[in-house]
């Protein structure tokens, strides 16, 4: 089933990305306060950040299912999600630093959201490193799954770190302020949603492709794999 759906997902991803980028350049206003054209990075940055958090939660979810039900496929799904999650986290951090440079004059700022997004990147990389360091696949799966679950505390911190009870107090001066999704113009919101959908389609496609190779690699001792490969010749 994955075979048949991957081209659809990839196709949807490409179409939506093109649509999203078109929208972000042509149908949205030219300036946003004093950020001029640079604010358009938001169309890549914000959906990528959303994806990074969601993919971590999904990875931890598969890890939890795998630990509870002891199913190999759940662990394989979790392992397949990790690199995509890492890519989106890196993308969010990188585009974010460009946005920060052009709009606020700084490549980096140690505000809570940014810092914990960086920690999220380290968590993804740690997951992949731990998985790669253990030879026995069963132990590798379970160990990295535990690590993924331990790191889940990061996500609420990223999400809630911008909700300050008192925006004027000294502790709450940060680069990221409370979510303003409700008050943006609809054209900007729609473009962001299209890009987010594009990223979701890409994630499905990438994860499915990856898990397909993981399954083939892990199960290569089994008959059905040799039959499949035989049929494909």
């Amino acid at each position, binding site marked *: 089933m994955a075979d048949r759906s991957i081209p659809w997902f990839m196709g949807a991803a490409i179409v939506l990305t093109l649509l999203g980028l078109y929208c972000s350049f042509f149908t949205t206003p030219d300036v946003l306060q004093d950020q001029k054209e640079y604010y358009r990075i938001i169309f890549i940055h914000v959906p990528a950040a959303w994806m990074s958090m969601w993919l971590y939660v999904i990875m931890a979810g598969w890890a939890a299912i795998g630990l509870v039900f002891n199913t190999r496929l759940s662990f394989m799904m979790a392992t397949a999600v990790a690199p995509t999650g890492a890519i989106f986290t890196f993308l969010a951090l990188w585009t974010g630093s460009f946005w920060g440079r052009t709009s606020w004059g700084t490549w980096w700022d140690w505000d809570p959201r940014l*810092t914990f997004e960086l*920690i999220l990147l*380290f968590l993804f990389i*740690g997951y992949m*490193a731990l998985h790669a*360091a253990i030879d026995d696949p069963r*132990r590798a799966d379970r*160990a990295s799954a535990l*690590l993924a679950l331990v*790191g889940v505390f990061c996500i609420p911190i990223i999400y809630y770190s911008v909700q300050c009870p008192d925006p004027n107090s000294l502790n709450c001066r940060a680069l990221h302020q409370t979510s303003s999704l409700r008050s943006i113009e609809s054209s900007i919101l729609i473009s962001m949603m299209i890009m987010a959908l594009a990223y979701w389609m890409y994630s499905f496609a990438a994860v499915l492709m990856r898990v397909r190779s993981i399954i083939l690699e892990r199960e290569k001792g089994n008959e059905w794999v040799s039959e499949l490969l035989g049929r494909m010749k």
Partner: protein
Amino acid sequence: MWAVLQCMLTRDLILAIRRMSDVLTTLFFFVIVVSLFPLGIGADMDTLRAIAPGVVWVAALLASMLALGRLFNEDFADGTLEQWILTPQPLALLVLSKIVAHWLVTGVPLVLIAPLLGLQYDLPANALWILVLSLLVGTPVLSLIGAIGAALTLGLRGGGVLISLLVLPLYVPVLIFGAGVVDAGISGLDTQAHFWLMSAFLVLALVFSPLATAAALRISIE
């Protein structure tokens, strides 16, 4: 059950005392790292005073992390760890007593020597006191969180580097508030909130870390 915990604690402490060098290496690593920074950055007292909390805390983090290797590895090597998993006592409690012993041997010396290092950086007296308190509350959390990493990487080739990759991101909140409380103390701001938050970390870690470590040990031993 208390007898079992006490027995384990005594055993670990006696083993640690017999191999004092392990303990002292961690301590001296801490002292050396803290002493390296003024040599590298220059001895301007104002700069040093400003960076002191961060430097001492990062050195404490690194020293804690290096000491994690001796938490489970020796017992894993001679098979005692497997026996613990097989006992009817809850593994989480056994792990907790091991972590307490580990902290007493590696964390407490750091706390005790911190005032001297603070003097090297020309910290005022009240800041020294806050530094000691912050380390006192923070180092157990470091041991607790580090134990999870140590259990996950039991017996692996990657060794110390892998454990640092796993454990340092989890240490970051403790570092932020630990160094932050000393900074606040130097500037004269209120430090209570930071201490409450760090105590919250300690309580959370005390509850969840032994469970996670026990699960990780079970995964690693199979």
